[in-house]
Every structure is written in C-alpha cells, then in structure tokens.
C-alpha cells in the first residue's frame, strides 16, 4: 500500500470582481491531481512556474484547503482538519521550503527552531529535548555551537540543512520538499541534496520533491510527475520521462534543459527549436478548449500521459487498465 | 474605475449612518439644554419649556433622530439655538472661512514640504539633510498650540505684522480689498499650520526619495545614460510623489483637527471655533451637524486619496 494517496485533488482560488465583489471565477491552481507516494521513495513533481506545484504541496500538508478531492493517509482523508489532528498527521508529514531564510523564524535561536515540532508532538523534558536537538544537528552535519545562534548567521546551505533537521525531528514518514535547492549555488546545492539522500537512507523517509530543475529531479527521483496549469500531464519513472517523453509539454521541457556538453550545443539547440515548433503546432491537440490537459492514460504499467482523446483511445484499447482519470 | 468609486461610495453610506447615530446620541447625552444656559434676567422658564417643546427636545431620542434625518434629506440641518439661524447657513459662512484657511495651509504645506523633503533626500547624509531633519524633530516635539500661541504673540502683537483675530478686516472694502484682507488674516495661521503639516511630508517624501534613489529602476535609468537630474525629474520625484499625492486626502483629517486649535488661538470664525462655542452653548444641532460634516469630510478625504491613488498608480488602477 502506498504511504499517501492523492486523489483528484483540486484547489481553486476565487477571483472576486464585478460590482458586488462576488466570486466571478476561479484560479484553478490545482485542478484534479492524482498520484501515490510509496514509502521510502522520492517522488518528483516538476513543472513551470505557476503550474500549481506548491499549492499541491500545501494542500497535501494541510496549509491550503482542498476544494475537492482526497488525500488518504492511513486510510483517512487528511484534507479534513479533524482527521489530521487525530492522526497527528503533521508529525508524520513535514515540509522543507524553498527560501531557507524565510522558513526559519529570524527571531528564534536554532535550538528553538528545531525543537518546535518536538515541543508540539513529543513532550520531552528539557535535557532530552536539548540532546535530541544536538543529535539532529549532528545528523545534518552542524556543530553544537549552532545551538544558540540565529538563522541569519548561517549560509544558505547550512540553513537549508537546519530546515531538514527540523523536518526530521519528529521521525516523519514523508517530507515535502518544495524547491529545496533552487535558491542555492551549485556546490551548496550538492551538499543539501547529498544530505537529503543520506537521511532518506537512514530513516526510510519518503520525499515529495518539487522542482523545476530537471537535472536535479533526475538525480533525486525514481518517479516523476510533470505538471502544467494545475494538472498532471505525464507520470512515470525516471526512465519513462527522460527517455520516452510522450506529452508534448514534457518534451518541450526536456529540450529546454541547457546541455552541458559544449560540443553538441548547436545540435541541441536545433532539436529544441524543432520541439518548440512542434509544440506550437500541436498545442491545440494536446489541450482541450479551455487550454487544460486531458485525463491521464496509462501507456505502460508505470507510465501515464495526458494524451488527446484520439491518441488515448489507442492506448486504452491496448491496456485493460483504465487510465487514472481526473 | 467608476464602479470602484461607486462601490466605495456605497460602503460609505452605512458608515455615515452609524456615525450620524453615534453623533446624535453623544450630543443628546450632553448635560444641560440650549435654553436654560442663556440666563437672561427676563427669560421666563415657562417660555423656555415652551421652546423646548417646540423644538421637540422632549421626544424620545429615536424620534428626534428620525426627524433630524428626515430634515437632513431636505438639506435642513435644523436651527442653531444660539445663533437663531439655520445651521446650514451658519456652516456655510464658517465653513467657507475654514475652507480658505485649510486650502491655504495645504498649499503652503505642500509648497514648503515637497521642496524641503526632496532637498533633504538629495543631500542625504549631508549637513543640509541633518538640518532639515533637526527641523522636523524639533517641530514634531512642540505641541501645535504652543507654536500657535508663540507665533501670534511674536508676529501678531509684538511685531504687529498680521491681524490677530477675525477672518477679514471690518474696514476692508471692495472685492480686491476684501480678498487681500482675507489673505492677510490667514497668512500667519496658515504658515504656522504649514510649519507643522510639513513635518510629515518632509519625512515621508525624504524616505521615499531615498528609497527610490537606491531602487533598481533608477539603476536601469542610469544604465540608459539618463543624466541624474533627469532621473530625479522623470523617475524619482514622480514615483515618490505618488504616495504623497494619496496622502493628501488623508491629511484633510489632520487639517480639520488642527483647525480647532488654530481658530481658537486666532479667534478665526471658522467651523472649529463654531464647534467650541456650540459645545459651550449646548447647541446640539450645530454640534451634530459639525461632527457629522467633519466625519463626512474625513470620509471624502479617504475616498479622494483612494481615487487619486488609483488614478496615478497603474498598479492599483482598475479598469
């Protein structure tokens, strides 16, 4: 059984307008997202800016109210507040944020930052608590002298590791990492990614890893979902996505990744422009009249794509399994 | 745009209604009545009761309120008991005086405050800047009325440069003479008021200009090869003046509040002085009308600010 199952999740923000300031429309930030995360895996969520990645993450963890859909955890729907409380859900699911500075309260010492979830979920005495904090610091490779310092006294990479320490404090089963390294320099990014992997190995944590950097995602994740305009357009293993992208959007995204091999850059560029051309041409077919993606269709046991109806029919006939519908 | 304004106006209505009820009840709760106070040796108390009855002062409050509102819609704010005159007329006379003074003060305030604030910001950190800031600190630390009193003493009495009471000289004749005389009467209070008003503007503008000076779009303009003085003109001032422009509407509140002090010290027959007198005479109709009017003006001020802001700032402009 999966650790957590997200089913048809929708988050709509009302747009107010008109004379009486009524709700005239919705921003469909997340519009029917379905995927499962297995225990101990890193699940990648990729998409361009504004595609609804963060909103999905927030809805899963309960920071944002879901408009529709369910998030099943231990057989209960945790989009409901009382279920979250009953399950101590926020002890099992933690979050790492993109902006390490803003995610650490600048007025709190590191000890208090890391101890915050401990104080809420595990009622340790003062000594035990301090010990735990020290241990956590050690795990993320920080010295004990960090204990009474303030967040701004650390570098971006160190801060991000403090964020990891806080997230790990309550032995979570799942950590949602929303672009944990996109604000970091290359070498620092490597540091944080290494730690995340290490901790995962040690504690068997699952990650929902959100990023728009396909290089990083490839490095981190086994399963990947590509999102655009609030919907998932393609889900699959790393191999499926990188070697056999089927949705036009995925292809375009992959083509846009800068190639570090200088020698092929003209070829790469040509390839990208070709894809771009195809994308412009086929946009109409790959999205419905509301410019939304179509429902997902299973093209292989691990690989689902939001194909246009004509193409989808082909695959539906091939596989007895129905596509995971939105 | 018009819709936004209209919506704002609609929101104003309940605020005005609540304000009017509040004001009315407060006025009613004041001790004494407008007639008993005027202890005329020949006034007959029976006559006073009679007058109270005529004016409906024995009715329950909601009925009095309702009557008052009904009259309000006919542009009738009632009669001033003290002045034996329709409140509307009274406020028209006094309101004009206050309006002139307020307008003049405002013109002076901005006329002095804007250059001063820019000057300080332009010379950020230098002696000139320090001097301006010392001026703002000191002015801010002296209560307004102390400045008024000292001002009237020095320039009104000791130096005898300006008249010390009234809004126009009794001797002034002709249109030109009257206008000049009126101006003569508001120069000193206007200047003193402006002395105070500028403090906010100077501080605000100074920090706005300094912020703008270090902003990215100024850097962009510099990289375009625009000379600094043109950058000041086209970018920095323009962008810094925006919040100030919006501030103008809100400053009405301050001006009106200050008018009570100014008019008292300068015996300037405006609405502020009228209010103080009305309080002493328990002239309810005048009190209610004035508080309501001032509230309404405050409301207009905020509305004005919002509108100005939505006109000058494309970011909040609503199509």
């Amino acid at each position, binding site marked *: 059984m999966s650790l957590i199952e997200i089913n048809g999740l929708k988050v709509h923000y009302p747009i107010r307008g008109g004379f009486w300031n009524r709700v005239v429309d919705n921003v469909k930030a997340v519009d029917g997202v379905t995927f499962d995360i297995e225990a101990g895996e890193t699940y990648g969520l990729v998409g361009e800016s504004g595609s609804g990645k963060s909103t999905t993450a927030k809805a899963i963890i309960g920071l944002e109210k879901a408009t529709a859909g369910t998030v099943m955890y231990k057989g209960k729907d945790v989009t409901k507040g009382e279920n979250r409380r009953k399950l101590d859900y926020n002890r099992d699911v933690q979050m790492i944020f993109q902006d390490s500075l803003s995610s650490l309260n600048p*007025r709190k010492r590191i000890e208090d930052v890391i101890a915050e979830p401990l104080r809420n979920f595990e009622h340790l005495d003062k000594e035990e608590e301090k010990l735990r904090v020290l*241990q956590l610091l050690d795990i993320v490779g920080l010295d*004990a002298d960090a204990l009474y310092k303030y967040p701004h006294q650390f570098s*971006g990479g160190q801060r991000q590791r403090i964020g990891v320490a*806080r997230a790990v404090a309550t032995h979570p089963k799942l950590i949602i990492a929303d672009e944990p390294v996109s604000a970091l320099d290359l070498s620092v990014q490597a540091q944080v990614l290494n730690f995340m992997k290490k901790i995962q190995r040690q504690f068997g944590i699952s990650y929902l890893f959100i990023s728009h950097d396909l290089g990083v995602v490839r490095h981190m994740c086994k399963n990947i979902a590509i999102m655009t305009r609030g919907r998932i357009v393609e889900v699959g293993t790393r191999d499926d996505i990188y070697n056999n992208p089927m949705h036009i959007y995925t292809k375009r995204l992959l083509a846009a990744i800068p190639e570090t091999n200088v020698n092929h850059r003209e070829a790469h560029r040509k390839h990208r422009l070709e894809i771009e051309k195809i994308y412009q041409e086929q946009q109409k077919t790959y999205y419905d009249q509301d410019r939304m993606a179509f429902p997902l269709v299973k093209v292989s046991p691990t690989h689902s794509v939001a194909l246009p109806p004509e193409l989808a029919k082909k695959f539906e006939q091939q596989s007895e399994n129905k596509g995971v519908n939105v | 745009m018009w819709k936004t304004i209209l919506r704002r106006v609609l929101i104003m209505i309940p605020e005005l209604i609540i304000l009017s009820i509040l004001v009315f009840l407060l006025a009613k709760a004041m001790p004494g009545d407008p007639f008993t106070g005027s202890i005329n040796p020949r006034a007959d108390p029976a006559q006073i009761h009679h007058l109270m009855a005529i004016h409906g002062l024995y009715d329950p409050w909601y009925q009095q309120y309702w009557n008052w509102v009904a009259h309000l819609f006919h542009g009738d704010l009632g009669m001033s008991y003290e002045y034996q005159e329709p409140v509307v007329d009274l406020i028209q006379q006094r309101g004009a005086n206050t309006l002139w003074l307020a307008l003049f003060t405002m013109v002076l305030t901005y006329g002095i405050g804007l250059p001063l604030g820019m000057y300080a910001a332009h010379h950020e950190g230098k002696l000139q800047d320090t001097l301006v800031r010392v001026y703002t600190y000191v002015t801010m630390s002296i209560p307004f009325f102390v400045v008024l009193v000292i001002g009237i003493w020095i320039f009104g009495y000791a130096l005898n440069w300006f008249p010390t009471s009234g809004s126009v000289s009794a001797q002034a004749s002709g249109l030109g003479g009257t206008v000049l005389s009126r101006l003569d009467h508001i120069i000193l209070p206007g200047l003193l008021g402006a002395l105070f008003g500028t403090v906010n503007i100077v501080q605000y503008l100074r920090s706005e200009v300094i912020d703008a000076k270090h902003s990215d779009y100024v850097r962009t303009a510099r990289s375009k090869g625009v000379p600094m003085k043109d950058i000041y003109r086209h970018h920095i001032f323009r962008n810094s003046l925006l919040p100030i422009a919006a501030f103008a509407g809100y400053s009405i509140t301050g001006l009106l509040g200050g008018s009570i002090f100014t008019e008292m010290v300068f015996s300037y027959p405006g609405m502020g002085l009228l209010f103080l007198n009305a309080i002493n005479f328990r002239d309810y109709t005048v009190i209610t009308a004035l508080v309501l009017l001032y509230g309404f003006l405050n409301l207009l001020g905020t509305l004005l600010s919002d509108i100005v802001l939505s006109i000058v700032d494309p970011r909040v402009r609503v199509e």
Partner: protein
Amino acid sequence: MKRDIEDATTISKADLAKLTKEANEEATPSRLKIMWGEFKADKPALVSLFLLVFFILFVIIASEFIDVPKMMETNIMGYYNKPFTPDYWLGADAGGRSIVKELIVGSRNSISIAIGLTIISSTFGICWGLISGYYGGLVDLAMQRVYDFMMIIPMLMTIIVIVTIIPHYNAITLTLILSIFYWMGTSRLIRSRTLAESQKDYVAASKTSGTSNFKIIFREIMPNISSLIIVDTTLSFAENIGVETGLSFLGFGLPMGTPSLGTLIANANDPENITQYWWTWLPAAIEIIILCLSISYIGQVMRRTTNAAQRRGQDQK
C-alpha cells in the same frame, strides 16, 4: 523510529554538558544586548535614555512626597509670585500655587496618562493588527470595516463631546476615552507587517509543526515585528504626551485642580500671560519639548538598530 536518530549519530547523553558549554560560548548575544550596545555607541541617545528614565523616576518618587490636595490649595497671597524666590523657585500661578510642585505632580499625571494611553492603545492596536493581518479573509474584512469607521470619526471633536458628557471624569477615564481613538495607527502598521509576515514560510513551517494559531501569532510573528512595535510604541508615547496637553489647552483635558503639563501650558492661552507670567507655562512647555525630543531620539536609535539588524540578517555570515 526513535532509535533511528540515535543510531545515526554518535552524540549521546554523555556529551550533553560538553556540547552545551560549547554552544554557550558561541551563543549570539540577545537582541536586548545588541540594542544596548547600539545605545552605548550613540552617546546622545544614551544621554536621552538616562535623562528620560531618571526624569520619570524622579517625577514619580518626588510626587509621592508632595501632598497634592494641599499643594493645590490656593494661597491668594502668592498670586502670580515671581520665580526664583525661596518659597517659589519657579514662581506661582494665579492661585499662588508653586509651579515647581505643580510641574512635578503635573509631569507625573501627564506622563502617567501618556504611559497608560500608550499601553492600552498600543496593546489593543497590536492585537487588532496581529489578528486582522494573520487571519485575513472575512475576519480581516470585518476588522478593517471597524478600522475604517474609526478613521472617519472626527477624533478631537468626539473626544471633546465625550469629555463633556462624562460627569466625573478624571485621569483614568480620560485615558480610557483617549484610548478608544488612539489604537488605529498602530493597528494599521502592525496589520500590514503581519500580513507580510504571515506569508513567510516560517509561519507555514510552524503550522506544519503543529503549533497553534495563538502561539504562532504571539510567539512567532510578534517577536518578528517587535522592533516595529518598539519603535512605534516609543514614538506614540512621545505623541501621546502631546494629546493630553492639547485637550487641556482647549479646556477639555484633565479637570481643574488636577495639575498636568497641559493645564500648566494652558496658562499660555492668554498672550499677556505668555510674556508677563511666562513662568507659569514656559517650564512645562520646555519640559514637553525635551521629553518628546529625547523620546523620539531614542526611537530613532531603535529604528536604526533594527535596520542594522536587518542588514546583518542579509549577510551570509
């Protein structure tokens, strides 16, 4: 799972004392200390601070030794006694009352009102702003309507009307009345900062750590805007000293017989008094100016301190 953490690290209970010591050595000084350091670096501000603290203490203690009803008794023989005489260091007012004593007791009264007003209105304004800004949505909308309404009320006029209504008003009722009208500025400031602050990830982090809203508001967000609160409170304290004096000047402040800086300065509403009996009002006016100046000076220093802190905050190290 608990064992996992211990497994993954070599740190055990035995190391606790040693590590704590290490940490303590490297501990960053608290903000209070930083602020204090900032004051020490700025001599005029330090002088202002001492002056203010000393003055407030002096006034409070000294006025304990003054028999106020007796002091307020008239001695018509001392009518406008000149200053610098043995009985009247700073002269006397129309009632033959010693200006020095009135000044001391008056300062105590005025400062108490200002302090009371600042505490009440700031506390209210801060809570209002925090709650309104944190919850947002409908709560915010409703609270903003109230705020809007309060803003359009002509404050001075309404206060005057209320003061004339209340039959037996005194320093406390006056403070309460004033408090009704002096929280809005603070609340607006706090609200807008809270609004910005609640968007920050550390709030989200606290929520996901299971911290209650109440705690988030007062333990997480409030400390972060504490510099703003301190600066605002200091500056409004300076402003609030002026409020009472203004009302007293108009004749609607403290009742006669309760000395205050305002009633003393109100002696200056007669141009003749200004020059001839200058000692009746000038000391109070000077005192207010000095008080307000030093308070705003202190406020400025605090503002600078917090700015520096922000700059430091952006540094990597």
